[in-house]
């Protein structure tokens, strides 16, 4: 019995030690959930933001875009995050008006495994034909015509795609659907699709592992992943007819090119965006917040954070290999943040 008591006491002291470093001031916990792709920069932001406003703590669960949309719709979180914009139908199901706030941009690149790792150029048509299984060999006339300098082997193309549902896939097939009517009709776009050909790898590491090991493989991964791992990447012909290499600058250029025709709700696809420098396979990632906030203090803190994120926060994007928002888009976001209200009263009117 005494030993039992002693164990109890030990456990209790252990617990109190866990609870001990309690905050000295009142804290507000902001709950969010959603996309995994922007998770690294979001956690950086949430961490840095405690220096700006020590009273706000963020708790972000990177459970995927689908989960983010579902949780924000059922109001179990204060904000959601998604890589693909919500559909009209999904927006209708939400109990209040939801705003899409772009945070950063990502790009998706084509990577391949060929002897000598030549620099390759592709058009959207050729990529769509390869992923449809219509072009099956590397020395196909359509590929050699685009790459006159490169020696392309008489080897089958092994297509590698993501097996897990992801925003990366969404961006890639969104681009293919825009370029190729056949793709649009046969496959369509989504976070997972019914692939006509190819092998599925789990995550960026699964795809790149497969591509690295399989001679003749062609797959797609996030720009950040390709840069970090020095993978060979292809230039892709953009809407302006230029072959553009995927970089952070050309990704931001895609958003700048689309800024003029940006719809008011930011639910826009940036693939095949206009502009000479625009890399054609790029996309925003969004935070989802209610236009009319249920809680005044929390709503104000959230609006302030969004403001900080779209201005000061953008400087952290480069290091983490995300493309920052271009100036004109930030201006548009400012207007959107000012629309956030509590019972009809604007929360950021002072700006």
């Amino acid at each position, binding site marked *: 019995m005494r030993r039992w008591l002693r164990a109890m006491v030990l456990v209790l002291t252990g617990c109190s030690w866990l609870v001990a470093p309690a905050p000295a001031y009142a804290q507000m916990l902001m709950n969010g959930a959603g996309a995994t792709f922007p998770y690294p920069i979001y956690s950086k932001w949430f961490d840095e933001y405690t220096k700006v406003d020590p009273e706000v703590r963020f708790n972000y669960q990177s459970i995927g875009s*689908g*989960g983010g949309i579902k949780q924000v719709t059922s109001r179990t979180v204060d904000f959601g995050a998604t890589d693909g914009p919500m559909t009209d139908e999904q927006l209708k199901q939400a109990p209040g008006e939801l705003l899409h706030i772009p945070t950063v941009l990502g790009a998706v690149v084509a990577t391949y495994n060929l002897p000598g790792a030549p620099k390759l150029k592709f058009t959207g048509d050729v990529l769509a034909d390869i992923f449809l299984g219509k072009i099956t060999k590397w020395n196909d006339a359509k590929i050699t015509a685009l790459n006159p300098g490169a020696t392309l082997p008489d080897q089958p193309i*092994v297509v590698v795609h993501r097996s897990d549902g992801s925003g990366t896939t969404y961006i890639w097939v969104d681009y293919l659907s825009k370029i190729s009517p056949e793709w649009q009709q046969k496959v369509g776009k989504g976070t*997972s699709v019914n692939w006509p050909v190819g*092998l*599925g790898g789990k995550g960026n590491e*699964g795809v790149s592992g*497969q591509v690295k*090991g399989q001679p003749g493989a062609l797959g797609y991964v996030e720009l950040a992943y390709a840069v970090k791992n020095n993978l060979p990447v292809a230039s892709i012909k953009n809407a302006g007819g230029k072959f553009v290499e995927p970089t952070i600058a050309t990704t931001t250029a895609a958003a700048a090119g689309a800024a003029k025709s940006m719809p008011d709700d930011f639910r826009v696809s940036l693939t095949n965006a206009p502009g000479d420098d625009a890399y054609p396979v790029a996309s925003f990632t969004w935070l989802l917040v209610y236009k009319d906030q249920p809680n005044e203090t929390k709503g104000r803190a959230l609006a302030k954070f969004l403001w900080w994120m779209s201005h000061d926060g953008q400087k952290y994007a480069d290091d983490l290999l995300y493309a920052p928002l271009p100036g004109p888009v930030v201006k548009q976001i400012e207007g959107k943040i000012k629309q956030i209200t509590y019972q009809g009263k604007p929360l950021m009117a002072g700006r």
Partner: protein
Amino acid sequence: MSVVAAIPQSAERAAPKNIGDRALRIVLKAAALAIVLLVLAMAFEMVRTSVPSMRTFGWSFLVTSTWDPVAERFGAIPFVYGTLVSSFLALLIAVPLGLGAAIYLAELAPARIRPPIAFLVELVAAVPSVIYGLWGIFVLAPLLRTWVQPALGKTLGYLPLFQGPPYGVGMLAAGIILAIMVVPYITAVSREVLLAVPNTQREAALALGATRWETTRIAVLRYGRSGLVGAILLGLGRALGETMAVTMVIGNRPEVAISLFAPGYTMASVIANEFTEATSEIYLSALIEIGLLLFVLTIVVNALARLLVWSVGGPVKTVRE
């Protein structure tokens, strides 16, 4: 059972010195009940959330093989096929290996090397499956692609099982990875079963002039056969539900292909792959129905394993007493 029930009742009436016993009883009972409730809640929730998919697709869910999240047409055949074939392949490799190792450890190995090998077996069982998956991608798949599959294609290529381009990843890779993961389970449980066979069995066989192999076969393996089947089924249960390692090497293509070189897909893999980004209700519901199918399959397999393990437990105990 009535005896067991009588003891706590008297304990409850007794002085507070038995308070510990009472607390223990309540805690343990709660633990046991919690498990039952958990399983029931899981089953209920899965049935409830897969209703939209059942309504829309009905039985066609079980007999069609299109998996198109964009058009929202779902059929489970390729996943059921992939799960069963990869698990069967795993057992085909793991059973001889696991049983062989167990027989050696229990019957033939010198006493001083038994503990280290048994320890190693347990160590292998504790390796996280993502490690197996990464090993599969970076070591096993290239090995299969450059050596094993071309060789198999050359020698046995007339069989439809070994045709097609060598990708490395695919059903064969999944079966091998699963086999490696299942072997330690089969070995460890089989070894326990063989050690539980009473020595009188062996002595009797040897006294009749049986050789070592005959003794093992007639007196030991026959005696413990239902326990050994239980060990194998336990391994099968593990293979059916394994997710991460299989997802990383199976190629994730929802197609029924005869060739073992071709990529396939399993039930656990498709859930792991697509659940997080499934946004529409029917899509989610279809994934949950896949989970329900897997749940039913796993319950059947585990129930069989339990029954067999119990049936071997009986006679061993009586002999020991």
